[in-house]
Each structure stands twice: as structure tokens, then as C-alpha cells.
């Protein structure tokens, strides 16, 4: 056996596996066996960590290494120049000039995880003179940098952040962010005012109740009633105005919204209370009204915050889309330009590993492109001179020159995104259960009030008006209005902690009813990457293979590297990459060839010995390894189905969902995957273009909810058209922006949790609605019989709200514990 002693020839393969773990001085991760410097005090797992350490050490910031919890992640700088950060177009878009001669920019940083990141980023002013301040908002990974543009260019700041392990991107949502910030602050101010007023009215009310039970001079009663009136007036007209505005808008649109009964209750209660105060008789309802306004505002704030968190997440990811392209000028010089500044006719220089920033035609070079983002096709596409290429595809193997045909708004990606926008707008808004009920509720209350008025008119005309009004007040739907937002906002908050970001409350209601579930294949059911699925042959050649594949961005190379992280590569003396074929070279004195069977056999001497190795399965991409003229190993590459996907599909079926696969990949591959998930072949469609997917969703929508799960731009239009679009981990930014739900964990298991959580949330909502309706029924009964008095009314209002709050709080909707 020529290869029996191969292991002995390659020292790393022969070395014992169990090595002493050496931690990296900077990030604390294990230093790979090959990089341990014997006897050195400081060990680094990569050059990125070494550079970061040097920067900190040189500037006397060794204190970083004494922080309690440090970021345990190797520093992998992109090494980009960030030249475009100094460009005029960039400045016009993202940089704001401040009055004091300084400039300010919001940057989204990758890789921000913990407290040590705040420490490090905020010390950039110490590392770079000219930077006045850097502030990091940890929840959104947003850094606000204030610097002196005359002293230091922004690109240098960006390079510094990059070498510390935080590649910066311009934050593309500054304007929307400013609007939201204003809204949030106004909301908070309203809650503050309403809360302070409610608290102080309570004090006056307690004095009155105490006096009511224990006796109180009439003078003081009058005084406290007037104090309450003075207090409640600003609460009604300042923070409470939102309910009147909402009710007015609903009435003008000829619908009955929850704001209508609230506004009615507030208005009637206030007027009657004020009249009673002036004429010095009968109940005032001011304490209940003030508390109602406060609680309702808190409910709305909670709901808004949960939705914000999810929307923020998608927007930040959107900031990651390529912001630059390298343009080759007529003089042969290559400059980096912001993607916004690209024009048709320009020539782009696209290196391997880069994403195309515009549509165009290849003018020079031959390479393979990964178009999975756009088409869902999992195999790379080979392109030649004259081939049309699209923005959003990734160049895999060798440099290309591309003449820009369509850029920005007219590129294919942008068109798909516009389609997404349109489908989202066409989608009929889901009317939430509580709002649907509100219409019936208002009608019932008004009817009951009329009946009360009529009956008491016969029995005791003096009390008729009083009793009808107390009915209107006591049935003010505080708990009813609180129940849905509270339950939904708590569920959204808990879901976010479990890695499920939900952008709207209506999503929870839609998902609680089983319907049709359409699954994308690439990246959703499968891992979306080329991985080594089969390997047969001599394990001793693994260091040799890795040596040849060490620097390649080709997915096969990445697949080899990902499959054998524990194997230290040998040293390659020469390497030659052949586009569309493979790679050959000399490693440790051996001639090694790795590539497609045709390519490898063509390299071998004529009596090519037929390898006695099992052929990889037909759906896999075969790769052969030959050493010194003999084929020694065969590998099969494919896109593996995620672990647990079959269980998840089974669990969803048990809950009553019908599951179908909708993919842009070749039908044979899709059928294969469907078989692995036990989905009938009839329910697995392949070769579906983005437009086909959209059509499939629109056809499937007749009454029942359609849920589209996907990860690519090719799914985005279908996701927007579906009742609920779910974006999965690692998906394209555009797709995440349109998704109603974003799952941060890969795989289909979170989908099962999402559906289960939605069902449980709906049960809580129904329970809350029943509670509040019972309260209102009891209150209405008491008011109609004329048995109501101010104390009972005052107790019933907060008690009903409190029941709903407790019921929502203790409910286990989302979370890992609830299954």
C-alpha cells in the first residue's frame, strides 16, 4: 500500500489528537495546533487577534484583558480600505455635520456581543486622535462616531474598528430612526404625565373613600372633588387625546375601533363627573378615568416596543448589503465607489468572494457564481465572457470584469424588492379579534343603555339618566382593550428572548389557525452551503487536500475546510487553480490533484486505474483526489438536510398544517429532499422562479392562512404576498426586511415553537376576553338594576384590568420551557 505510510510522512496527521489547549491571549479561544509558538508568553489564534492585541497594548489599554467577560470570538478583519467612507456620495448620504466643526455618523458594527465590546469601541478616541467620541448602543450594535474630518478621515476610523474585529457598515435607516425616536419619546412623556396624574388622583380618591366610610366634613369633600377635577382635566386632554383622535379616525372611516368605546366612556365619565362636581352630588369617576388612561397607554407602549425590536433587527441587517463596488477607470486604476454612485457603462472589478453590486455583462474572465440568493439554485453557475450577471450573486472562483448595464433601482434585485413592496401593500389587513369584538361591544352597550333608560323612565324617572350613564361608565372596556395588546406584547417579548422576532400582533392570530405551509429548500430545509456529505478513501491524504484548498474561496474548498477543522493542513509548494475543473499542485513532494472526475482523470497518466471506490450518490457533486498519478479518494458534496427538519415537519403536520416544498433548485434535488422529509412528491415543486413562487402563494390563498418560509430574495415577493412570511436565520437582508417573523436559530425547529407559541397566545387572549366580558356583564347588570355606587364602580374598573394583567403575565406562551 503506497499510502499506508502517508500518515507517517505528514507530521500533523501523525501527532496525537489530544493536545494541551492553549488559549489565545486576545480572544481566549484555543490556538490551532500548528500556530502555537513554543515557550511564548502570548499566543494568538490568528493574525487578526495579534493585530488587535498590538493596537491595545501599544496604547496602554491592557486593561481590556482584565475585564470580566470578554468577547470569545477570533478577530477576523476584512482588510478592506473603506475608501468609500471618504467619498462625497457617502458623506451626503450618511454623515451629518455638527455645529462645532465636527461630523457625526451612525455605523452598524458586526460582531458586537457583550460588555467588553462597549468598552473597546468607546475607547477608539484614545486610539485615534481626531475622534472626539464613540458611543455604542449595545442592543442594536449601533455606534455613533463624532470626529474631526480635518484631522482624521472616516476611512481610518473604519479601518481601526475593522482591525479590532468590528467591521462597520453605514446605518441605512437614519431618517426612519429619527421619526421613531420622536414617537417613542412622545409616548413616554404621555405615560409619565398620565401616571403622575393617576397617582395623585388616587390620593384624593382615598381621602374621599375614607371620608365616605368614616365621615368627613362636607367642606373637605367638596375640596377634594374639585382637586380631582382639576387633576383629571390635563390627563384627559393631553395624554388621553390619542384615544379621541383614534376614535374620530375610526368613525370617519365608518368602522368601529376599540378607541370608540374608550373615548365614549372617557367623555361620558368626564362630563358626568364634572357636572356632579359642580352640582355637588353624585359620584365622580375621575380616579378610574385617570388610571384607565395610564394603563391603556402602558399597554400600547409595550406592544409598540415589541414590534420595534423586531423591525430594528431587520433594518440593521439591511445595512449589511454591499455598499461599495470597485470600478476600473479608463486609466486602469481601480477605485472604490459607493453602490449608489454606479452608472451604466462603468466597468466593475469583482474579486472572488465578493458580491456583485449591479447587473451587467462579463467583459473579461471566467468564473463561477453563486446565485442561490436570487434563484435558489444550490449549484454554482459557470459564467464566461458575454454572460449576463445579476447584482446580489457572489463571485466564487476567479476575478471578473463586468460592464454595468443596470444599477441601483433598475437592477433585478431592486425590481424584485419593489414587487415585494407591492404585494405587502395589497395584502388585506388582518382585523384583530378584539377590534372585531369592539363593534359588537359598542352596539350592545348602547342598546343596553337605551333599555336601561326606557325601563327606569317607567319605574323611577328621576334616576333614569343617572343609571344609564353609570352603565356607560362601568362598561368602559378597559380590560377588553388591554387584553389583546398585553397578551400579544408579552408573547412577542418572550418570543424575542427565545430567538423568534415577531413584527406584528396580527401574525400571532394568523399563525394560531393551521393552514398551508410553504417551505423554501435551499437554506431553509437544507443548510444552504456545499458540505462534504460522503468521503471514501485514504484519510491520510486529508492534510494534502487541505493544503491545496487552503486559500480558495470555492465552495468545495470551504466544504473540505469545514469538514475537517481538526486536521492541520500540510504545506503546498505550488498550486494551480483551473476554473471549472479543480486544483492541482505539489505538496510535501507529492503531485496532488483535486477536482471533478473528468478533470482529475485528464491529469492522470493514460492507464488511469479505475478507482475501487464507491461512486457518490447521483444527486451529489463528485470530487476525486489523486496523489502521484493514482486516484486515492472520492468525495461527494451536497447541500445536507438540516438535522431535525423531518421531526419538525412531522410535528407541524400533527398540528394540522399541510406542508409543501417550493424551490428554485432542480426538480431532482427537490424530490430528494422531499423524500427525506416524508413529503409526497406531488407537494414538492422545483425550478420555481421568484415569479412562480409568488403565483403559487396567490393561488393557494383562498380563505385559509398561507405561511411562506424562506431565506432568499427569490422568496421575498412570495413571503410578502403570503398571510405570514417567515425569514430564517442567515437569510438575505431583503428577505428579512419583508418577513413578518424572523427566526434567529437555523432550521425548522423554531417554526414548531412559533406555531405552538401562537396557539398558546391565542388561548390567553380568549381567556382575557372572557374575563373582561364577564366583568362588564356583571357591571352592566348592577348598573341596570340601579345597585351601582361609586365605590363598587371604582373597585371594578382596576380589578378587571388587574385580572387581565396577571392572566397575561403568568401565561407561558413562548420560551424553551414551554413545549
Amino acid at each position, binding site marked *: 500500500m503506497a499510502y499506508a505510510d502517508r500518515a507517517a510522512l505528514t507530521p500533523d496527521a501523525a501527532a496525537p489528537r489530544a493536545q494541551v489547549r492553549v488559549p489565545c491571549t486576545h480572544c481566549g479561544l484555543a490556538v490551532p495546533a500548528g500556530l502555537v509558538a513554543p515557550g511564548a508568553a502570548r499566543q494568538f489564534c490568528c493574525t487578526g487577534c*495579534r*493585530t488587535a492585541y*498590538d*493596537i491595545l*497594548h*501599544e*496604547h*496602554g*489599554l*491592557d*486593561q481590556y484583558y482584565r*475585564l470580566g467577560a470578554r468577547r470569545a470570538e477570533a478577530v477576523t*478583519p476584512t*482588510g478592506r480600505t473603506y475608501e468609500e467612507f471618504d467619498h462625497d456620495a457617502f458623506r451626503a448620504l450618511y454623515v451629518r455635520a455638527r455645529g462645532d466643526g465636527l461630523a457625526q455618523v451612525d455605523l452598524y458594527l458586526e460582531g458586537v456581543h457583550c*460588555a467588553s465590546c*462597549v*468598552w473597546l469601541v*468607546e475607547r477608539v478616541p*484614545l486610539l485615534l486622535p481626531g475622534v472626539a467620541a464613540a*458611543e*455604542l*448602543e*449595545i*442592543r442594536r450594535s449601533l455606534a455613533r462616531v463624532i470626529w474631526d474630518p480635518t484631522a482624521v478621515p472616516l476611512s*481610518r476610523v473604519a*479601518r481601526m474598528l475593522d*482591525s479590532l474585529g468590528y467591521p462597520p457598515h453605514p446605518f441605512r435607516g437614519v431618517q426612519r430612526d429619527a421619526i421613531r*425616536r420622536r414617537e*417613542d*419619546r412622545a409616548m*413616554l*412623556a404621555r405615560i*409619565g*404625565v398620565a401616571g*403622575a396624574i393617576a397617582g*395623585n388622583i388616587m390620593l384624593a380618591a382615598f381621602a374621599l373613600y375614607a371620608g365616605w366610610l368614616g365621615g368627613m*366634613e362636607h367642606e*373637605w369633600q367638596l*375640596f377634594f372633588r374639585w*382637586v380631582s377635577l*382639576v*387633576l383629571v382635566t390635563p390627563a384627559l386632554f393631553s395624554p388621553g387625546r390619542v384615544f379621541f383622535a383614534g376614535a374620530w379616525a375610526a368613525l370617519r372611516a365608518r368602522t368601529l375601533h376599540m378607541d370608540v368605546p374608550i373615548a365614549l366612556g372617557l367623555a361620558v365619565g368626564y362630563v358626568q363627573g364634572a357636572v356632579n362636581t359642580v352640582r355637588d352630588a353624585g359620584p365622580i369617576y375621575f380616579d378610574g378615568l385617570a388610571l384607565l388612561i395610564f394603563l391603556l397607554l402602558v399597554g400600547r407602549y409595550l406592544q409598540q416596543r415589541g414590534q420595534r425590536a423586531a423591525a430594528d433587527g431587520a433594518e440593521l441587517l439591511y445595512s449589511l448589503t454591499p455598499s461599495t463596488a470597485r470600478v476600473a477607470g479608463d486609466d486602469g486604476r481601480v477605485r472604490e465607489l459607493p453602490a449608489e454612485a454606479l452608472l451604466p457603462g462603468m466597468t466593475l472589478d469583482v474579486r472572488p468572494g465578493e458580491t456583485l453590486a449591479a447587473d451587467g455583462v462579463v467583459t473579461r474572465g471566467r468564473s463561477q457564481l453563486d446565485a442561490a440568493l436570487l434563484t435558489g439554485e444550490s449549484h454554482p453557475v459557470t459564467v464566461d465572457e458575454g454572460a449576463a450577471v445579476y447584482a446580489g450573486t457572489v463571485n466564487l472562483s476567479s476575478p471578473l470584469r463586468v460592464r454595468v448595464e443596470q444599477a441601483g433601482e433598475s437592477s433585478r434585485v431592486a425590481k424584485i424588492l419593489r414587487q415585494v413592496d407591492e404585494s405587502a401593500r395589497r395584502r388585506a389587513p388582518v382585523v384583530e379579534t378584539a377590534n372585531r369584538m369592539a363593534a359588537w361591544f359598542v352596539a350592545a352597550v348602547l342598546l343596553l343603555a337605551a333599555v336601561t333608560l326606557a325601563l327606569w323612565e317607567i319605574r323611577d324617572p328621576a334616576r333614569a339618566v343617572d343609571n344609564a350613564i353609570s352603565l356607560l361608565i362601568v362598561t368602559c372596556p378597559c380590560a377588553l382593550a388591554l387584553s389583546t395588546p398585553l397578551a400579544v406584547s408579552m408573547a412577542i417579548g418572550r418570543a424575542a428572548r427565545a430567538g423568534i422576532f415577531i413584527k406584528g400582533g396580527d401574525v400571532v392570530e394568523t399563525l394560531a389557525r393551521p393552514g398551508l405551509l410553504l417551505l423554501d429548500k435551499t437554506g431553509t430545509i437544507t443548510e444552504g452551503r456545499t458540505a462534504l456529505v460522503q468521503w471514501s478513501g485514504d484519510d491520510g491524504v486529508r492534510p494534502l487536500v487541505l493544503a491545496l484548498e487552503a486559500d480558495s474561496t470555492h465552495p468545495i474548498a470551504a466544504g473540505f475546510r469545514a469538514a475537517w477543522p481538526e486536521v492541520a493542513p500540510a504545506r503546498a509548494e505550488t498550486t494551480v487553480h483551473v476554473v471549472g475543473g479543480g486544483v492541482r499542485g505539489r505538496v510535501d513532494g507529492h503531485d496532488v490533484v483535486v477536482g471533478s472526475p473528468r478533470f482529475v482523470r485528464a491529469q492522470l497518466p493514460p492507464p488511469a486505474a479505475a478507482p475501487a471506490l464507491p461512486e457518490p450518490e447521483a444527486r451529489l457533486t463528485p470530487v476525486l483526489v489523486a496523489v502521484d498519478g493514482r486516484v486515492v479518494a472520492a468525495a461527494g458534496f451536497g447541500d445536507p438536510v438540516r438535522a431535525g427538519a423531518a421531526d419538525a415537519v412531522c410535528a407541524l403536520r400533527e398540528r394540522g398544517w399541510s406542508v409543501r416544498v417550493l424551490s428554485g433548485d432542480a426538480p431532482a434535488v427537490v424530490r430528494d429532499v422531499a423524500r427525506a422529509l416524508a413529503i409526497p412528491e406531488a407537494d414538492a415543486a422545483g425550478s420555481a422562479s421568484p415569479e412562480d413562487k409568488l403565483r403559487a402563494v396567490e393561488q393557494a390563498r383562498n380563505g385559509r392562512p398561507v405561511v411562506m418560509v424562506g431565506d432568499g430574495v427569490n422568496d421575498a415577493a412570495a413571503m410578502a404576498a403570503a398571510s405570514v412570511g417567515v425569514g430564517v436565520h442567515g437569510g438575505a437582508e431583503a428577505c428579512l426586511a419583508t418577513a413578518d417573523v424572523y427566526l434567529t436559530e437555523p432550521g425548522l425547529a423554531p417554526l414548531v415553537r412559533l406555531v405552538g407559541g401562537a396557539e398558546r397566545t391565542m388561548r390567553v387572549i380568549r381567556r382575557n376576553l372572557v374575563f373582561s366580558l364577564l366583568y362588564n356583564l356583571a357591571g352592566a347588570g348592577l348598573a341596570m338594576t340601579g345597585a351601582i355606587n361609586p365605590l363598587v364602580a371604582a373597585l371594578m374598573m382596576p380589578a378587571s384590568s388587574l385580572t387581565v394583567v396577571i392572566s397575561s403575565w403568568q401565561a407561558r406562551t413562548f420560551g424553551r420551557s414551554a413545549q
Partner: protein
Amino acid sequence: MSVLYIVVPLALLVVGAAVAAFVWAADRGQFDDLDTPAVRMLHDDEERNPPTDAPPPHDYPE
């Protein structure tokens, strides 16, 4: 008891001042980011050690 006629309006004035302060703080963005300050305050108490005069042990990209 007639002191209430002075004390209650006075209390309401204090409440008004507190509410005004809160609204002012909210408008100035004091409550925009509630997560980072909690982390930041843990770091601020130590000075940095004196910068080393020795040249950096390795080259690094500028």
C-alpha cells in the same frame, strides 16, 4: 385642617415640576437606550496604564 388649602396646591406644584422634569428628560433622549449605560458604568472606574514607549512588537495595518 385649613392648611390643606395651601399644602395640596403646593404638592400639585411639586408634582408638576417632577412631571416637567420627566418630560424634559424624555425629550432629550435620556430613555432612548436603556441597555448600554448599565454595562458602561461597570467600566469607567479604572485609568489606563501608562502607554508603553517600546515600539509595537509587530506591524499592523493602518
